């Protein structure tokens, strides 16, 4: 068997190389997108696990101000509690001589060390010799420029500014994978002092005695009095996975499409050798080998191709994920602490390798029917060139069925958008041969009107090599399909998010809020001492208090938006999906009413007018005034007025000041006047509404950038795959071209034939892909809008579709024209060497 294999391999090294490259490209894209999507959630999980160690349960505060530390001793007295450790976690802006970074400040005492989490396993948390000091990972320390023992970093936490000396940098050796996470650890008392939260903590981690977990949970819930959350310690990971679901699903979709493109690349390469392969099968069968032995030889082929392809693909994907697909948390970083580490999990490797091997096996075993056939020579029997009537009818019907499935998911169950996309892909594959046949038939008819042999030759050549033609058309088709649907949905989403950002900035001229990029959603409270200072400024017409925060409600970390009652508009007008804008505005302004995003309302079975209890720090009852989109925040949003927020959160602290400027004051001018009035070292940042909207746009674009990058890469891969497959096809055809030369056709005509064939294939493939891609876009739009409630602005991405079609066709033709030209110059004597 090995001998047979060796003999064959040598005779078609080039094609084997193509196949390996194809598999490698698919595996690479698959692997890179896997890494990108897993890195974020792994990073969140690592931080969470690094802190909690062996703890199983936790008592969580519902706002950044936390709860009284006194609860700790009650928790420790609960029967069955083995260990309990208090934590204060706060978002902070760390400023050093080199730069500033948003970080999570973690205050803990020595009891945390006993839980054995990676973060503090090697750190002493007793106050360092009586003075407060901080430790942080090496990369962060170097980033902000605070590296030496005793060097001071400025920490801005909710309007409190303090100097914190560095005790030491943490090395990868000490904290492992957390090295790339933006965290600063301090002794609990020092952290409380810096955050202005003396005697308060934000969570207590609890390790119950074996078997007592349930009892402890019940006891803790009683202690919490409905004002604190009692959850298991992986709660953060659950919240994150809900928040990142959209991003992860789109990555999965991309991964599937990239894998398909790679598979088709490999499949195309395999088709180049299909006649040799068929002859080999026939030879083996004639010599008395059983089908099983034949399959054995072919599987060996697949194993070799697959292994080499996968190995190359993993290297390629690894490189891609380093160079291109930086996992960018975008908006998520305003609610979760996400590191920049690239996490390569065993699962990513397994998925990518499985995909690659599957592609190799399917491609190699494609003539399976002939192998298993009773007739040993079936593999080289003359092929049916065009599909028979029945096959055509079946294909049409099945394709229609798949499109119907896609439309049904679009209309009825948008949750299953992925299923719809797969159905569209199936329809694409089923209809493509029909589209090609129809196009060839009409070209053949058209050709009768012109005086030239070129179209006749082109049509007959395409018909003769139909399976290969279909495979090539399928390659560009699937790439254009994926690219159009995803780029289209991406554009619509971005457009919608920009509208939401615009609405959120419409009710103020200038924002004053705690510094730090984590505070993009204005969720950090701060003492209102600066309010008075601003009211006397000449350029300020009115100052009001905006409140807002993040609230964990079941599996969702929702965004609470609480503009002052004076805000106009109070409810973002473009974001309403149900209810009357004016009436809802009046209700919310009057108090006791809120606007919820659709998914939240649905999850809690709420209709307009219903009342419900919001699990705020002080649980409060509200009525539903209207239903909105998620206002750009995946887990969902709730809009109430600032006074309601103050009551429900039990704190008068604002999260931002909304400043309306006097008539005639330019925003930039007003901003400078306010900055001067606040003075330096306030820990607050002042930005115009325009600046804040820009920042939101930038972050939106960054978060979505990976989508367009992958879409572009898929197109590029498809162009290469198509051009390579067509180039190889043309090259193999040189003897036939030579024969035409013998008949008196000039190189120019032959070149024309080659180009015409390619244009036909590309156009059929791309047009089919673009058409279904537009349907796919609707499917994704609808899923984003109704499942995650994104404020998607629905459109039909015709320009995107046309551009993809034009780019792929033009690029593939450009690449192909060179081998095409050379092949057309084939010496006629080649025709005689048969």
């Amino acid at each position: 068997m090995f001998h047979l294999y060796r003999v064959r391999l040598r005779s078609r090294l080039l094609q084997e190389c193509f196949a390996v490259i194809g598999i490698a490209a698919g595996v690479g894209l698959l692997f890179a997108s896997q890494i990108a999507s897993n890195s974020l959630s792994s990073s969140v999980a690592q931080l969470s696990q690094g802190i909690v160690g062996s703890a199983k349960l936790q008592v969580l505060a519902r706002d950044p101000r936390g709860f009284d530390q006194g609860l700790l001793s009650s928790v420790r007295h609960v029967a069955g509690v083995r260990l309990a450790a208090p934590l204060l976690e706060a978002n902070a802006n760390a400023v050093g001589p080199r730069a500033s970074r948003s970080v999570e400040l973690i205050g803990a005492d020595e009891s945390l060390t006993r839980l054995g989490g990676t973060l503090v396993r090697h750190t002493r948390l007793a106050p360092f010799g009586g003075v407060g000091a901080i430790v942080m990972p090496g990369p962060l320390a170097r980033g902000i420029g605070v590296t030496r023992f005793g060097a001071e970093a400025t920490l801005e936490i909710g309007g409190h500014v303090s100097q914190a000396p560095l005790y030491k940098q943490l090395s990868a050796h000490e904290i492992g994978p957390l090295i790339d996470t933006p965290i600063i650890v301090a002794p609990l008392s020092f952290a409380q002092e810096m955050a202005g939260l003396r005697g308060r903590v934000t969570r207590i981690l609890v390790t119950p005695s074996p078997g007592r977990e349930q009892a402890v949970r019940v006891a803790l819930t009683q202690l919490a009095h409905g004002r604190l959350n009692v959850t298991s310690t992986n709660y953060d990971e659950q919240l994150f996975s809900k928040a990142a679901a959209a991003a992860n699903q789109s990555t999965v979709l991309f991964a599937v499409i990239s894998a398909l493109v790679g598979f088709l690349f490999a499949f195309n390469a395999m088709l180049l050798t299909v006649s040799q392969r068929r002859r080999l099968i026939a030879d083996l069968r004639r010599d008395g080998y059983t089908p099983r032995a034949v399959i054995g030889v072919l599987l060996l082929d697949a194993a070799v191709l697959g292994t080499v392809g996968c190995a190359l693909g993993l290297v390629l994907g690894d490189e891609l994920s380093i160079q291109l697909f930086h996992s960018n948390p975008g908006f998520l970083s305003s609610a979760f602490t996400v590191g920049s580490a690239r996490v390569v999990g065993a699962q990513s490797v397994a998925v990518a390798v499985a995909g690659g091997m599957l592609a190799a096996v399917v491609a190699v075993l494609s003539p399976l029917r002939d192998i298993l056939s009773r007739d040993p020579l079936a593999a080289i029997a003359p092929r049916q060139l065009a599909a028979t009537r029945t096959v055509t009818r079946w294909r049409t019907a099945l394709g229609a069925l798949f499109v119907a499935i896609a439309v049904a998911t679009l209309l009825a169950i948008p949750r299953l958008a992925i299923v719809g996309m797969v159905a569209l892909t199936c329809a694409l594959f089923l209809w493509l041969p029909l589209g090609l046949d129809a196009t060839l038939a009409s070209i053949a008819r058209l050709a009768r009107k012109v005086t030239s042999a070129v179209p006749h030759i082109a049509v007959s050549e395409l018909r003769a090599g139909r399976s290969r033609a279909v495979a090539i058309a399928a390659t560009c088709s699937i790439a254009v399909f994926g690219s159009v649907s995803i780029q289209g949905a991406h554009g619509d989403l971005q457009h919608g998010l920009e509208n939401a950002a615009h609405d959120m900035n419409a009710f103020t001229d200038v924002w004053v809020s705690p510094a730090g990029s984590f505070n993009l959603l204005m969720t950090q409270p701060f003492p209102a001492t600066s309010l008075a200072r601003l009211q006397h400024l000449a350029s300020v017409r009115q100052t009001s208090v905006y409140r807002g925060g993040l609230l964990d409600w079941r599996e969702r970390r929702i965004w609470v938006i609480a503009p002052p009652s004076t805000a106009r508009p109070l409810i973002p007008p473009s974001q309403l999906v149900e209810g009357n804008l004016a009436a809802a505005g009046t209700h919310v302004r009057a108090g006791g009413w809120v606007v919820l995003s659709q998914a939240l309302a649905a999850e809690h079975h709420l209709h307009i007018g219903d009342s419900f209890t919001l699990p705020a720090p002080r649980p409060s009852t509200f009525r539903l005034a209207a239903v909105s989109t998620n206002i750009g925040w995946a887990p969902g949003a709730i809009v109430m007025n600032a006074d309601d927020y103050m009551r429900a959160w039990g704190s008068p602290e604002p999260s931002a000041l909304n400043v309306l400027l006097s008539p005639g004051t330019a925003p930039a001018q007003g901003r400078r006047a306010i900055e001067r009035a606040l003075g330096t070292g306030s820990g607050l940042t002042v930005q115009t509404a325009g600046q804040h909207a820009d920042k939101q746009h930038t972050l939106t674009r960054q978060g979505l950038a990976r989508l367009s990058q992958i879409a572009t890469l898929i197109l590029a891969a498809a162009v290469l795959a198509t051009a390579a497959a067509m180039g190889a096809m043309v090259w193999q055809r040189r003897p036939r071209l030579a024969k035409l030369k013998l008949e008196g056709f000039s190189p120019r005509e032959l070149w024309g034939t080659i180009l015409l064939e390619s244009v036909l294939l590309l156009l059929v493939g791309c047009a089919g892909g673009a058409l279904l891609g537009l349907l796919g876009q609707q499917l994704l739009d609808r899923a984003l809008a109704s499942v995650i409630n994104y404020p998607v602005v629905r459109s039909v991405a015709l320009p995107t579709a046309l551009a993809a079609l034009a780019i792929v066709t033009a690029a593939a033709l450009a690449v192909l024209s060179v081998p095409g030209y050379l092949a057309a110059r084939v010496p006629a004597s080649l025709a005689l060497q048969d």
Partner: protein
Amino acid sequence: MLELRELVKHYELVGGETVRAVDGVSLSVSAGELLALYGPSGSGKTTLLLMVAALLEPTSGSVLVDGRNISTLSERDASQYRLSELGFIRQSFDLLPGVSTLDNAVLKLLKNVPWREAHARMKPLLERLGLGKRLDQHAETLSMGERQRVMIARALSTEPRLLLADEPTGSLDTQRSHEVLGLLRELCRERGVAVVLVSHDPLAAGYADRVLALRDGRLDGHQPGGTPVQHSVG
């Protein structure tokens, strides 16, 4: 019509050795004449035809068709010459698969004649060749003899002055060979086409106006006794 003057083709092998594939051949064929050229394998028959078809440049000597030197034509003119003045039939059949008999036959014609007219023009010829019932059948389903007849139809479609046939009966049995050769001679004589038929099949001699033998690239003047030349017809 066709005249070869001291035609020579030497192939330089990699080792510096020279193969004298055609070594000074002079002959002429007139319109309507069928010349059979005999020779064992490797005697230079194909090489000779390639030079006549302007596919191979002679080492020396010249190929004249109606007094025009073929070996100095540009690539474009050579294509044009092969398309309109030459028919080339070979042992293997270069038919387009998946394409009907009729469409295969008109392939050369389509370059200058609209499809409908080309079809109209080809039908009588195909009927003459006994393919009247096979017009719409796909090429790959035809028998070998039928395929060769389609090739003859294609070769004659542009009404060439000169027809080259390289072992046209090589893959046919005796019966089919007789049919094909008979048709070839008949059609060419009718249309005044000069034919050079190259073969090592003695059968062909029966249809030739003249028979020449080629050996080691040279015309062999001495015809051994009992050679097909004695069966020459016409």
